């Protein structure tokens, strides 16, 4: 079953596919071909978008966007991975394909990593209120420094002992 699905994808797209174990397929794809592949796998039965995640590969200067998809029909988890430039993080939205489900995942990833999902019309803040710093889940975001600057109350004895010793 797993190899069947991989073969079908391989026949139409240039991908690097791997079967990790039973019921787990990982596929690497170019950013440009992603949307077409998404449409293709949705039609194959991957109806449930379990999660969208971003990994910040600081050394390579890239973000890796991952889409975890589940097929209720075939009972297989397919993960699509694509890399985008970290300094210019733009990627096409998958909202037209998976609807509101994708919308909310993209909104979260936009807030946490600053990835811009083109075509998603609501990327307003979700969890953080009045946040002025950079997207907090970026690897180069120095949260210790941020807290020291923003929230350190120098008049408070207990806080002095905490912050000065660090």
């Amino acid at each position, binding site marked *: 079953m797993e190899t069947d699905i991989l073969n079908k994808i391989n026949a139409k797209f240039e991908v690097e596919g791997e079967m990790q174990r039973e019921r787990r397929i990982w596929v690497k794809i170019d950013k440009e071909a992603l949307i077409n592949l998404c449409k293709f796998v949705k039609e194959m039965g991957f109806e449930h978008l*379990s999660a969208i995640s971003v*990994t910040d590969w600081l050394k390579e200067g890239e973000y890796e966007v991952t889409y975890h998809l*589940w097929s*209720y029909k075939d009972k297989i988890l397919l*993960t699509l991975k694509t890399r985008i430039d970290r300094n210019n993080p733009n990627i096409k939205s998958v909202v037209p394909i998976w609807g509101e489900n994708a*919308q909310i995942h993209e909104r979260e990833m936009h807030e946490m990593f600053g990835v811009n999902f083109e075509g998603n019309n609501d990327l307003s803040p979700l969890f953080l209120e009045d946040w002025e710093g950079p997207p*907090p889940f970026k690897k180069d975001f120095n949260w210790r420094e941020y807290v020291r600057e923003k929230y350190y109350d120098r008049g408070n004895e207990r806080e002095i002992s905490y912050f000065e010793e660090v």
Partner: protein
Amino acid sequence: MELEHIGKNEYELFFGPAHPGSGNFSVKLKVEGEKIISARADPGYLHRGFEKLMEYRLPLQNAVLSDRICILEPLNWNLIHAEAVDELMGIEIPERAKYIRVIMAELSRIQSHIIWYGIISIGTGFDTGFKIAFGYRDYILDLFEMITGGRVYPAGYICPGGVRRDLPQGAEERILKVLEKIEEMLEFERMENPAHLERMKGVGVLKLKDAIRLGATGPVLRGSGMKADVRKDDPYEVYDKLDFEIPVRNEGDAYARYMIGLEEIQQSINIIKQALNDLPDGDFIAKEFKKPKLAMKIPEGEVYVRNEIARGEAGIYMVSDGGTTPYRVKIRGPSFLHMIPVFEYLLKGAEIADVPAIYWSLNICPADLDR
């Protein structure tokens, strides 16, 4: 609740985040008279940034941290985290540990479903149900205290490699006794209750097509007629060796979801009885973790682990670059989708009085939404 006048008959109503009927979560309702025109969820009250915190901690520390992802079912979150680390490190878990993990996860599910019943009852004006539920839940908390040491938070009892301690002496008999008590409570729950019937029948109807599009999982999806359960479809631990059924209903309303929760308690009881019966002897933790080294390296790789918890599908995506701490952890909580897209969708066109019934019928936990 705050009320703001915005039009001739339109008001904006702020429901939560410290409202007794809402949990630590708020939603902005635009209402015309008694009818809700639109709803917008406003989460973030419980955001603690677990995903970032875990990047700075060792797996053994993360095991303790993973309790806190959801207050109502810490053991299930323990299990998911442990499975992610196990799979990344390629550790073979002793058979006994797998059975203990399943027993604990199912006890946790029953306990969580009992809270669900209690909270639905108070949301629909049936206080007795609330008190009965929390009274019976205490029996399970006593078990948790005996086995893990903590009543609510097990402090990483299910840890990478297995479980932290073996079942203490006499635990099996006590679990069976508690299950008898829970069955007693189920008798009470099964009585048809006018408060539940009137307030939930036909309220908050979610069609199967919408449920899939909005990303619903677990009891919410099964209440809409889809036979899907991660324990059956994507089995982990020893679920493929156990015999149990997946309750499904087609109505898609709040009452269907509530009935699914009730039937799942019975299924969990059956699972625990089977697991106790088959419980093998042997080690309860893999030898690599018997005396864990602090600077244990996690091999490079990535995994996506899914589990069925009481609320639906939970997942952890863990990436390691070969260091001692995970490079990236993504936590997928079922409430994330139930509380934002599904809830917003169901509220549109509903009556204000139905908000608590719809809200609690989704069995949601703000903690695993905000993380």
